[in-house]
């Protein structure tokens, strides 16, 4: 494409069906502790 460069292979829609294994790390949303927002995590699978 000339005007658009997509920089990722998005997976959000497909994980509606495939996710939920729950083996991923807990993700504290606050300003303390390990303080990882889910957006900053990767899938453990």
């Amino acid at each position, binding site marked *: *494409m*000339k*005007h*658009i*460069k*997509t*920089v*990722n*292979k*998005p*997976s*959000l*829609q497909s*994980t*509606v*069906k*495939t*996710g*939920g*294994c*729950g*083996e*991923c*790390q*807990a*993700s*504290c*949303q*606050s*300003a*303390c*502790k*390990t*303080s*990882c*927002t*889910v*957006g*900053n*995590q*990767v*899938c*453990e699978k």
Partner: protein
Amino acid sequence: MKAKIHKFEHNGQYILLDVNSGAVHVIDKMIYEMMDTFDGTNDENVVAALKDRYPEADLREALEELHELMTMNQLFAPDIDVPPTFRQTGIIKSICLMVAQDCNLRCKYCFGDGGSYGQERAVMTPEVGCKAIDFLIEKSGPRKHCEVDFFGGEPLMNMKTVKAVTAYARAKEKETGKKFKLTMTTNGILLNDANIKWLNDNDFSLVLSLDGRKEVNDAMRPDVGGHGSYDRIVKNFKKCIASRKGGDWDYRGVYTYLRGTYTHNNLDFTKDVLSMHDAGFDILSLEPVVLKDSPYAITEEDLPRVREEYDRLVDAYMQCRKEGRGFWFFHFNMDLSNGPCVAKRLSGCGAGHEYVAVAENGDLYPCHQFVGRDKYKLGSIFTGITDTKWPQYFRESHVLNKPKCRDCWSRFFCSGGCHANADLFHGNIREPYEIGCEIQKKRLECAIYVQAMQQLEKEENNG
């Protein structure tokens, strides 16, 4: 109306996020302007709105590209509802042990009242800690990976319990097939050679607290006698981190990083991140303080300055990378292609339903920040969870059930923010803390920008 896209500009780069697919597109300025009008169905309106500024042929060519993205479900992707993979009831897989509700520092912004959490200063006994491990084993059911975070106050003040619980957990791993990831958050005052060795031998991940520049750290993180802590803790942190390099450390699956807090008093916090980097630390995190009615609190009036500072931090981060002395900044890390699944994005931190805190006396709370907030007490490790309404309420308090979150563009990245902060400001975990939201959104833009630029750079290098 639910936000389906979000767009922003930084340093002449125009970025478009498709909220429901997670697709990130780097676009030109013309498309950036077209997206003010384009809704997927109104090509002629777009042409009419912009034909005085851009050649019509270019606009139509760009519209074709936008429709191509729509066909691929990467623009205006369908709304996401609660998926069947999101279990109705959570499984507790992570606990926070308040091994010492006491501390040897008196940080001025401490949410735990100097470690005591508004209660008597006390430490957890090994019996309570081991019983908490039993509780976790039982509650985690089929989950193999469980997490135990040793927290406080200052957990190194109670190594007797830390050691006993660790030995017990490791023995239980063999019996049950569980795998416990152990973490400690420490202020470093007691991080001496013996403690470093023991934590290393036992594969602890470590979160080390430091606020950046010496003068900033010492103003906010004095010891009980009012003396600054910087010189003592930096010396210990350097030793600790040096001891975790080389050998098999890259493969142990443990992490060690420095985290700090910025307040109203150091809104020039890029200097604090760079100060930590200059001191030789390269895995870093710096967070805004969360306080109500305090001279250190970040206020609404501070937000423009905070946003500017994140722009400055992004530029400094990119510059360091360019010079070959890059560092890892937690909030700029993001895997745009292999991020968490929708179920995880709805679960968020899991407070109250996948994660609980165990107070020194064994009382259970939805998370460490709720310790001492009696209304939220869930039960105790001796009785189990006796108040079952809260775990379910926390489980259902996800972004699609929160009025202010369900329409927000960042809903699948922030998971609705911190429940404890929402409770602190509004007495309601479903009403997010607005200043936190604004800062979070800015950080997400920064992270998306950083990842997009790194991807473009990678593609350029690969020809």
